[in-house]
């Protein structure tokens, strides 16, 4: 038992932080001392956290730059919302339907991750980035022209308009092109979001510490060396990429079951979203799961906290982003920071530690 705690110290700390944060927020919510604006943000924050930690698997652990993460989220959101709408009233109770919806989002996003990963992972660096961006945009655009309807004869599919579905009278259009899916049951709650975060954290942290995870990191650090010791590069790359995509799908499920109408727009599933998630990951520290978690929360709350400044808030957000990047990463800024720490009486040890590293 003791060795279990010792081995999983880092994982347990992360899970502890999440649980404590959950309990505190839940107490605030129950006592009613939280504004409705903040309450409305709770589920989106949960889905952003899952997106950030799952992208960190691709960017930090696999070491490949993906700019199409929102596309996988889009797949998860649409397949699960489609399923929920199809089975509302058929599968009871509601929580069972929601669990099935989550599994469907996970599965479909994972399958798409696998299919897209197969050709894409052959490329490298910025080429890989631009191709994942392209796939994300394709998925978003396809969702915008997809029409699916249901009547007594079964399901009908079209990419032209809802009339060409040829529905019988009493038939129901489920996915209505650019209007998307309306009337998805609102199954996402903050508690569900918390549970999903915990499950994703366990999956990812276990993966990183497993044999497969070490193989993936070996590939990231030196592809040729990894290959030469017999690691199946394609297999492990695909594994990490699909897992990351599948978890993004789960975030999509959470996102879509929180909305009354789900549409594929540039704002929610376009490359801007993918970039926003990437910002979470890089600012939180590439490869640090706990870092992505914290930065996803802070960066989602920051524009809301600055709401009082109305039009200036996004400007301030941009300036904060640039300054933080420069201050965190520029070699001159790092040297400056080390000097400051050296001057402080209690910071001496830490600074000299850094130099050793």
């Amino acid at each position, binding site marked *: 038992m003791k060795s279990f705690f010792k081995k999983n110290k880092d994982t347990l700390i992360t899970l502890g932080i999440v649980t404590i944060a959950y309990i505190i927020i839940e107490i605030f919510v129950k006592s009613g001392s939280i504004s409705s604006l903040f309450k409305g943000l709770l589920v989106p924050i949960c889905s952003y956290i899952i997106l950030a930690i799952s992208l960190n698997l691709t960017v930090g652990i696999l070491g490949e730059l993906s700019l199409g993460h929102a596309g996988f989220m889009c797949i998860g959101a649409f397949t699960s919302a489609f399923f929920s709408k199809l089975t509302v009233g058929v599968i009871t109770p509601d929580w069972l339907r929601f669990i099935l919806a989550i599994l469907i989002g996970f599965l479909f996003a994972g399958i798409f991750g696998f299919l897209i990963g197969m050709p894409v992972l052959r490329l*490298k660096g910025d*080429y890989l980035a*631009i191709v994942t961006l*392209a796939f994300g945009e394709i998925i978003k655009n396809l969702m915008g022209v997809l029409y699916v309807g249901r009547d007594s004869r079964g399901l009908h599919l079209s990419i032209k308009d809802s009339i060409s579905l040829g529905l019988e009278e009493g038939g129901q259009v489920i996915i209505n092109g650019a209007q998307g899916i309306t009337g998805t049951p609102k199954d996402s709650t903050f508690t569900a979001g918390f549970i999903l975060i915990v499950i994703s954290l366990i999956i990812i942290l276990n993966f990183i510490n497993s044999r497969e995870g070490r193989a993936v990191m070996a590939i990231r650090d030196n592809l040729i060396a990894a290959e030469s010791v017999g690691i199946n590069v394609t297999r492990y790359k695909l594994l990490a990429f699909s897992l990351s995509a599948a978890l993004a799908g789960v975030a999509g499920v959470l996102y879509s079951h929180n909305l009354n109408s789900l549409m594929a727009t540039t704002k929610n599933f376009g490359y801007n979203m993918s*970039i926003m998630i990437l910002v979470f990951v*890089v600012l939180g520290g590439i490869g640090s799961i706990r870092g992505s978690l914290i930065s996803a929360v802070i960066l989602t709350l920051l524009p809301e906290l600055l709401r009082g400044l109305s039009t200036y808030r996004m*400007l301030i957000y941009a300036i904060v982003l*640039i300054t933080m990047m420069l201050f965190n990463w520029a*070699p001159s800024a790092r040297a400056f920071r080390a000097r400051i720490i050296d001057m402080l009486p209690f910071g001496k040890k830490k600074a000299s530690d850094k130099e050793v590293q």
Partner: protein
Amino acid sequence: MAFLSYLINGISLGAVYAIIALGYTMVYGIAKMLNFAHGDVIMVGCYTVFSVVSMAHLPVWLGIIISVAVCTVLGVTIEAVAYRPLRQASSSLTVLITAIGVSYLLQNLALLIFGANSKAFTSVVPIKAVKIADKLTITGETIVTVIACIIIMIVLTLFVNKTKAGRAMLAVSEDKGAAQLMGINVNRTISLTFAIGSALAAIAGVLLCSAYPSLTPYTGSMPGIKAFVAAVFGGIGSIPGAFIGGIILGVIENLSKAYISSQLSDAIVFLVLIIVLMVKPTGILGKKLQEKV
């Protein structure tokens, strides 16, 4: 006839992409970074011309000159303030995120100054449309755009291959350290690249907004991404590659808009990019890189 007119419009759009892609490709070749803010420099160029010509009622040529000057200064400033300190940083992702930050900054500055409503941009091209056949007219914007693109490409190729500063650029893009040992001022060369790229972005912006006259703070971002796709398509780092990539991209986009679906045209453009990269992983004219162990 209809096909020909779609084709010509496509070439015109492609020429704009090509000019933007030239800026992208040069910056990427030298600084090895995706400059996400490049698209927003285009937007700044558009707003500058708009302010000078439509709001201050000054002549068009002055507007273009001021716009080019503003963008050049802007590009060099961005590089010096936001990108240069990060050049030695351990991860290349950091400078990408900073570029995204700069992009947000420019968009929101424009939003604050000009508002979110789209502004009607009056075309700066004085040439009238030429009627060739019954249903085939070529607009003045098309003529000017294509000619401008060809001139820019030729001048740029000559500049890079024949002048000392241009060859310094080639050297820096090949190997920064070795170039420095040869006495090339790397910082100044990179600044010069950003200056040229941003000046081209201003010209592209003016041409783009003359052809599609609605101007918002987000005008530049999608053409910026498409131009980057064009640069990758043609082989990033290569000047003729950017030209070919831009034209092909514009033609595909316009033809699929006309014949397949206007909503899916972007998806088709990206699909073609994916297919090209699967067959030729470094783009049409890209150099094959040897991997060292």
